[in-house]
């Protein structure tokens, strides 16, 4: 069974606090390629590599079934700064 957005959302929300979450199926609904944008306080003090490893570990079972996976991670402070800039 292909990965569903709900599967990814559940796994993320069960792992750590979520300030903002966007999940996009980039394979026209086939569930083979996803992009995720996650804002969480858990990323405070972590390098980008460490953040991505955290997500990779959290979603490792799902990622293993995908053709492609892309992610963007921000802390709430970074996200708010981005919003303030109008991005």
């Amino acid at each position, binding site marked *: 069974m292909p990965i569903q957005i709900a599967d990814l959302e559940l796994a993320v929300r069960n792992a750590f606090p979520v300030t903002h979450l966007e999940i996009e199926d980039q394979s026209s609904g086939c569930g083979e390629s996803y992009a995720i944008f996650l804002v969480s306080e858990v990323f405070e003090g972590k390098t980008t*590599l460490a953040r991505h490893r955290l997500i*990779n570990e959290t979603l490792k079972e799902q*990622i293993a079934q995908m053709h492609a996976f*892309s992610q963007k991670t921000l802390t709430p402070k970074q996200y708010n700064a981005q919003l303030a800039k109008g991005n």
Partner: protein
Amino acid sequence: MLRSVLQTPSLSARTALSSSLRSPAFRRFLSQEARAKIQAAVEESPVVLFMKGNPQMPQCGFSRAAVQVLEMQGVPPEKLRTYDVLEDSELRSGIKEFSEWPTIPQIYVNGEFVGGCDILLGMHTSGELASLLEQHNVIPKTEPSSEPSS
């Protein structure tokens, strides 16, 4: 040759794999020999990119993007080594276990894992990638511009 080392594991390796399958902390088996070969590969050149396809004919958008970023950074061909994981399924899975990173492409600078496409693009945008490449003498250091006298 990297390919031959990553082919079918020996009987003892398969036994070890069978045993580790019962472990709740199971990780796919990567022999010491295979790990050593991959280690040698990532250290072979100042910049090493494991990708789908090759720089002339990337086989996926993320690999293409990685190549383009390195080109934009001015990484000279003689300092870049690429491996096409589509030509070697054992390498494709082995490099993921080696780096504990689940996707391709993967980039290494001076033998150290840097990240995948997302990280590479982010570092390119922020200027971190240029700094890293300059630090390891992959690209020339940029001279600070001096203010013209008035």
